[in-house]
Structures are given as C-alpha cells and as structure tokens.
C-alpha cells in the first residue's frame, strides 16, 4: 500500500541503505511517521505497522547503520525517545531519553558503529544525548554547549580516531573533539546563524573542510576546521539551506549538493560554481530534505523530501 501524504505533513530527513543500489531500501522521517521503501524510493509504506499506533507518530529524524546489510539497524527520532529496529525497520524498540521529553532533531551514527556502538542524537531544546551501547542507554552531555537547540549535526569519517563532530544551532556552530562529551563554540559569525545543515569532508581529518548551510544567509565553507569561513554560491544559493550532501569521494570528486526550499543546486568544483536543478514539484510544495544514496554523479538518483510529506525520486 502506498502512503498518502497529508497537507500539513513534512519530510524531515531521508536515509538510505549503504547498499541502496542493490536493495533499494530507504526511509523518510515525516510528521506523519516513518516511511519505508524497498524499491529505491518509488513506492513507500509505513514502517510503523508493527507498532499499531492510532495517531501519527511524528518522526523527526532517521539514520541507518553503516553496516545495515549485516545488522539491519535503523534509528528513528521521536518526541521523548529514539526507536531502534534491528530488522530493517519492521519492528521497533523504544529507548526513552531522560526527562523532560526531548524532541529529536537529528541522529548520527559512528562510522564504526558496528564495533563501538556509538550514536548521538541532537534535540531541539535539550542539546545532545549519547549512547555507546547501540542505542540502549542514553546520557545527556552538554558541557560547553550553551545553545541547546540543535538543528544539524555531522560526524567525522575518522571518528574512531579523532572523535570529532559538529553541531549547528540557533546561534552558531559547536565542535566536540571527544566524541560529544564536551563542546566548544567555533568561530562562526553569529549574524549568519541559525545553522540548519552541516557537512564534513570525508577527509576532514586531513583537509579540515566543512560546509554549513544557514537559515537565511546561504552556504559557507571552512577549510581550517571552522576557524574562518567563506561564503559559497553568493547570489545563487539563497534562502534556507535545508540539506547539504557531499560526494563520498570529496575532495577528489569535489561535488556538493544543496537543497533550498525551491531548488536543488549542484557544484562540481567544491562550491566555486553552481548549477540549478529545479525538480518538478507539486503545487505549493517546498523541498525539505534530500539524500543521494548512489552519490552525486549526473545519472545517480536523488531522493527529495517535500513539505507536505511527499518523497520524490529525481
């Protein structure tokens, strides 16, 4: 059965299996729940059928294990807790986050999740929670994180060695170099915040490159771990940057994808020049999330989430 989007619905985030090319599995976290697709995002079903909930269970974030093919683990963020599935999203267990019930805004898993079991959730009002046992127990760690409205979070690909991650908040960007146990504000200009999306170069440990998308001031890039920032796509990438995707081969393949409310922009040269790819949107729909499960090649499909709850494959 294909789900029908509701007008007040929104797609908050999309996550796909690392083996998407073969299994076609992907998830969309929506105001109306969590949708699951097994055919590469063409048709979608509710992933919460086993929960038998009467009212829609607003799901604000979703993340898939880097080892999904082996462990079939998916996490979904809801109000007050994190749902975990170890069978590819068919059945779920709830881990309640400490009171007062936080609303999860983002989930990131350690690239080495299969071994270290580390994952973090950002919340809209309560900062960051950590789990180091695969999502069973959670602890709030907000030392130095004086702005607890977490809008975006991204993790270093070398997390197991550098323990580095970043969060974007209402007022700027914070960095942790000890796996999220404490945070330091980095030099992101306050007048450019809120920071709605963040992306780290897969080679961050060596090139110190990260991108920050803002709510109203466009896209910024730092090549020194956040010490200084330059605007990219000035005059082109305008408005709220709702999602940011870097090529998994960045910087060797310097492709960057940006989703604003009305457009998708792609750069093939690390943000120096941009081309606009305006997907055909249903009337009164805006882009709210994007995923590139097969990379950013010209022919690779993109999954695009919309305000209204639709998810398109373009």
């Amino acid at each position, binding site marked *: 059965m294909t789900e029908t989007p509701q007008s007040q619905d929104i797609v908050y985030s999309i996550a796909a299996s690392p083996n998407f090319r073969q299994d076609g599995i992907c998830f969309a976290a929506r105001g109306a729940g969590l949708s699951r697709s097994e055919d590469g995002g063409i048709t979608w079903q509710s992933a919460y059928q086993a929960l038998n909930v009467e009212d829609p269970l607003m799901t604000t974030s979703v993340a898939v294990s880097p080892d999904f093919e082996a462990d079939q683990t998916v996490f979904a963020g809801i109000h007050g807790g994190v749902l975990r599935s170890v069978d590819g999203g068919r059945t779920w267990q709830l881990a309640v986050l400490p009171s007062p019930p936080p609303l999860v805004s983002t989930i990131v898993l350690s690239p080495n999740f299969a071994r270290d079991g580390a994952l973090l959730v950002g919340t809209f009002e309560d900062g960051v929670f950590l789990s180091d046992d695969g999502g069973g127990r959670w602890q709030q760690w*907000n030392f130095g994180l*004086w702005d607890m409205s977490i809008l975006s979070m991204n993790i270093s690909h070398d997390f197991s060695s550098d323990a580095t991650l970043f969060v974007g908040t209402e*007022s700027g960007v914070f960095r942790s170099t*000890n796996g999220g146990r404490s945070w330091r504000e980095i030099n992101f200009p306050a007048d450019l915040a809120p920071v709605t999306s963040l992306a780290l170069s897969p080679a961050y440990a060596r090139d110190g490159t990260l991108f920050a998308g803002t709510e109203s001031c466009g896209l910024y890039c730092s090549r020194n771990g956040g010490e200084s920032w330059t605007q990219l796509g000035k005059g082109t990438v305008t408005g709220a940057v709702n999602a940011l995707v870097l090529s998994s081969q960045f910087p060797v393949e310097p492709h960057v994808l940006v989703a604003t409310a009305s457009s998708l922009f792609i750069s093939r040269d690390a943000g120096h020049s941009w081309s606009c790819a305006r997907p055909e949107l249903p009337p009164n729909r805006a882009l709210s999330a994007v995923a590139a499960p097969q990379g950013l090649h010209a022919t690779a499909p993109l999954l695009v989430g919309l305000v209204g709850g639709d998810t398109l494959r373009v």
Partner: protein
Amino acid sequence: MPKQTSRRVVFQPATYLGFQRGINQIVEVIRPTLGPLPRMVAIEPTFRARTPELLDDGGVISRRITELPDRDEDMGAMFIRHVLWRLHEDVGDGTATAAVLFQSIYNRSLRYIVAGGNAMVFRHHLEKGLQLILDRLSGMTTRLDGKRQLAHVAESISHDHELAIVLGEVLDIIGEYGQLQIRTGRRREIEREYVSGAYWGSGLLSREMITDHTRLRTQIDNAAILISDIDIEDPYHLAPVLSAVAHAGIPGLLVIAGGVSERVTALLLVNRTSGKFGTIAVKTPGGIADRPGTLEDLAILTGGRPILKATGETVKGVNLQDLGRARRVWADASGFGIVGGKGDPCALRGRIASLRSALTLAEDGSDRELLRQRIGNLMGGLATLSVGGLMQPEVEARKELAKRTCEALRGVIREGVVPGGGVSLLACRSALQSALGQCTDPDGQAAYRVLIRALEEPTRTIITNAGFDAAEVMSEINAAGGGRGFDVISERVVHMSEAGIWDAAAVQKAVVHRAITATALALTIDVLVHRKKPPQTADNP
C-alpha cells in the same frame, strides 16, 4: 601623647646587601623543589604535637615563611615571597622556576650595578630582553588536545599518575572555563562526577521543599524562574506570580530571592501539587559585589528580567514576561542548577564574549576566578573531584596539588605547551644572543648576558636536584642541539617534545614575565625605611 613616627632608614650599599640576603634565603629554600625529582621542605608545625608539614610547592613554601629576624633581609624575603605567591595564585605552577630565575638575574645584575652600571638603563634592557623571550616562547608553542595529552602534562606538573589521568579527562570535558569543585572524598581513590547545566552554590531556603528524599533534592521540568535579590516578606506579593504561572500551564516556579518569610514559604509549600506543580525557593547567589552581575547572567541565560532591590521594585508587579524559563531546574541544600535556559542564545553568546574580554583585562586573582566561574556557569557544566586518602594531611596536600595542576591545565588549554625541562628557556638564548650582537650600549650588553645565563638556571637546577652534575649534562644538552634536554627519569638527553615532556606555555610565560619584571623593580630599590615597631607578621594560610 605624640605618635611614634620615627623610622630607621637604610641606604646603599646596605640596602642591596640586606635585600639580596633575604631573597637568597627564600630562593635557597625553594630551589630543591624544582623538577620531576624534587626534594621536600619540612616546615615546623604550628602546634608542638603535630608532625612537620612536608612541602614541594614553592608557592606554599614561600607563603609559610612569614618573617626573617634581620629586618633588612626580611624586606627582600617578603618582596620575593609576594612575587611567588601571586604567581602561584595566578597560574598554579612555576614558582620554583621563577625563584631560581629571579635569583640568578638579581644577583648577577646587582654585581654589575654595584660595579658602576646604570640601574635604570639596565632595567630598560632587561625589559627589552623579556619581550624577545616571550616572542620566542610564543613561536615554539604547540596546542594540545584530548584527555591523554592533557593527562601527560598533568603528570609532569603533579607527578601523581592517578590524579593526572583523572584531571586529563576532567579538563578535556570542562575546558578552560568550566567549573571544577575539589572536595574531600570518602574513598581512597579519586572520583569525579559531572553535572549538566549551570550551577550556583546557593541552596534551598527551606528543607521542606525537598521532594526527592533519596537524593535530598527537588526538581521541576519546564519551570518558570523569578530572578530577584528582594527579601519577599508578604505572601500577597508572590501570590499573583504563582497564580499566573499556574494559569499559564507552566509546571512550576523557581523563586530566586534574597530571602523569604515563613509565610511565603508556607504559600509555596501549600501550592505544590504532587507531580503537577512544583515550587522551589533558593537564596540569591553571589556576594554583594558580584550579585548584580550574577542576576544579569541568570536573566540572560533564562530569558527573564532581574527584579532588583536597588531599583525599588517589588515582586508584586511581576508578570509572566518577566520570568525566566528553563527546561529543568533543581535544588538541594547546598545549591541550585538550571539546565536548558530559554534565553536568547545570541544574547548569551554576546554575554559570554564580554565576560571573556573582562577576564583578559582583570588583574586581581579573585576577580578573575569570579569571572571564570560566571563564564563557566553560562557555558554550562560542573565537574566535582572527590579526593580521598588515608590521612587528612595527605588528602589536603592532594587537593591543593589537584587545584594547582588544574590551574596549569587551564593555561595549557588556553595557550598550549612548550618543550619542558627548561628546554624552552634554553631555546630563547639564541634570540638574546642576536640582540647582544647588535647592542652597542654596555648596560644593554650586560643585561642580555645576565639573561642568557639566567635562562640556563632552571635546567641546571633540575639536573642538580636529580643528583647529576649540571656542568657535564649541560654540555651534553648543548652538543645535542635544539629541542633536546635532560629527562631525569630516564637519565638521558632526549628530544623533549617527542618524549612528551612539556611545560604549560602560559605558566612559562608568566614565570619569565614575573621573574624579570620583579628583578627590574628590585634593582631600582635604593633605600629601605623601617618602622620603629615591626609590622604584624604576615598571615599564614
């Protein structure tokens, strides 16, 4: 009866001689404590029955010497004592290094000035040399990060492996500004605990407000916060506030006030509804001087408005918009905490930035401590270290060591590290050699020569204290080349950075700065004036 105003006045050369003897006595007491293999100094106890106090911290040792019998010598001794204690308070480490540096510069300089050198011109060149040294130290500074590296530095400061490991972790989490409380623990090992959010050491005004009788505390989620320093006597003043909070569907109210009357306490207690509405009253934190600033911090953190006694306001006119909000508030008998204040994060960011600026300008140690506490509170998080041991003197000594090491680690986080074992100072000699080569003024040349020799003194002392021949090892170090020094533990000349032997850059800079500026000042003292009756003995904490 007329006041006794007669003085004894001492002129040169007695001034220099007396002052120098006093300085040398203090420094020779501290000298054996320099380095990773220090000798101890035993201080006679205040009471006969107690055992002597065994110390290896130059700052505390100098503090224990409160008077020398010869009054000329005493003035020199108290001069260096003050310099060292201030250094101890400001950076927590480096007093022994500063003492030997100071002594070397002072004694050699004095010899030159007594032989006819111009003290004022000489002083000017000492200060120019200081700038060269500070620049050179900045150039060799390395940033450290992570608990392992911090623990490594902590061990080189404290020589206490267990303490160093814990402090490495704690400082990695709380950072430069974070709050750390050091308490006496109940167990032998060192324990640490972390508390999220902001914390003030100002507890519940009534123990009856405790709702969690296991943890002896009370907590409210999504509370409103009344921020004030007013003594609330009349329950009718607070009742409208309480009513507005309840009608707005807010689950509870934290009252921060100068005090509350019994009738107000009764009002707060009677309005509690189990699980639905909570009330907490705590005393306004801070002393008289810092209270307005603290209340302003609370207001910015929570988005409220401080209701100040000084403005003549009462709580009667307070409305919902004046109240702060937070995700969680809690309090126990000794303090209260706020987690997830609902203030404007941009305003909070601005506040933290302005307090940081004030901190860089503050000169007084207690002002700086207060500012750091305020910054730490706004940034959120408190760590508590519980230090245990077999006997109370051991526990107290370890707590003092933990405090001192923590101060030095804050400096490491702020400014990084330089190669340890005195090697960073040896590396500064080349900058002074260049300046010496270009200087034509005899006073300037003498000043640079004095500094070049003095920069070797800490390394020589470390070597001697470890039981080796300083001259022999120094020639080995000089032959080995830059960055190398003597590791007294492995008894080898090693590359200090590669061996992980570091000094806190902030400490090293402060040491050099204090030693040279204090010497420059001491060299210009020409006359000593004694009161007829000696002053009271200095306090001995």
